[in-house]
């Protein structure tokens, strides 16, 4: 690695206030998004107010996909170069992706109870999304219980790549198979946002922007935190080694 421990330490110890700005900007946009979702967007004719879950469900799913796209890119980078920074980026994004995919599944279940009368059904869209969530949870478990060393990072990177292949399958599952899930209304063959009235589309876009900003904030905070933990561990190991080196001759003398 090109950077020295001193360089990494000073980089990690430098506080970054711009992360706080990101948090507050994301939250302010989130409050605006909440207002638009509840008061600005019109009531849907068939599903009434339950349809408003859409303004949380779709942005959560979008951020989940974005996070796993970052995991995919970072995992490819890690397997290619074996650089720790790629592994940290993949780990960070996996954690955030799992949080937002859980939120997408949970909000979808609440909507499903209202629209279909059931919290869960083994519909193609739901099943493929569950598979995605499960693959990344397994990836986190591999990291947590795989033990130290590069092997668990390599396994997690392979899972990060394999899991990403499920995303096009999720998007096309409602087109390819008979699914109860509504068809895409934002990214569809008829054009961007053509399936929505403008007020609904604007409310959705503001919420998508807020969730994306929150993802960026979470990613930068958690990534910096993992980097700092790495530096602390390396420094403690350094201290331990130098203590052993200093203490070793005395121990030898004492044992004679």
């Amino acid at each position: 690695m090109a950077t020295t421990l001193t360089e990494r330490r000073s980089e990690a110890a430098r506080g970054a206030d711009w992360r706080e700005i990101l948090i507050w900007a994301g939250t302010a946009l989130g409050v605006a998004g909440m207002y638009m979702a509840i008061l600005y967007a019109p009531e849907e004719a068939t599903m009434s107010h339950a349809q408003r879950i859409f303004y949380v469900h779709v942005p959560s799913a979008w951020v989940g996909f974005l996070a796993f796209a970052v995991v995919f890119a970072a995992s490819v980078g890690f397997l290619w170069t074996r650089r720790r920074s790629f592994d940290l980026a993949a780990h960070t994004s996996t954690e955030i992706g799992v949080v937002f995919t859980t939120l997408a599944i949970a909000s979808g279940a609440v909507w499903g109870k209202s629209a279909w009368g059931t919290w869960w059904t083994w519909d193609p869209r739901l099943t493929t999304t569950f598979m995605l969530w499960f693959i990344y949870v397994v990836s986190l478990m591999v990291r947590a219980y795989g033990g130290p060393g590069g092997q668990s990072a390599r396994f997690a990177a392979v899972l990060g790549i394999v899991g990403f292949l499920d995303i096009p399958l999720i998007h096309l599952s409602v087109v390819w198979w008979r699914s109860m899930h509504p068809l895409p209304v934002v990214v569809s063959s008829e054009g961007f946002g053509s399936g929505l009235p403008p007020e609904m589309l604007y409310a959705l876009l503001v919420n998508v922007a807020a969730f994306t900003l929150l993802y960026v904030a979470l990613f930068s905070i958690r990534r910096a935190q993992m980097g700092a933990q790495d530096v602390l561990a390396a420094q403690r190991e350094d201290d331990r080694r130098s203590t052993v080196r200093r203490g070793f001759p005395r121990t030898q003398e004492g044992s004679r």
Partner: protein
Amino acid sequence: MNPLTAMFVGFAIIWGGLFIYVLRLHRLGRAIEQQLRKEH
């Protein structure tokens, strides 16, 4: 409860939860950075 109020409560819980999550993570990061400064 009025469905619109229920929706508002649900949204507030989600945003409140996300806000607390990101803020706690940020404070934890700060604590680690402080530890790093203290040790060196």
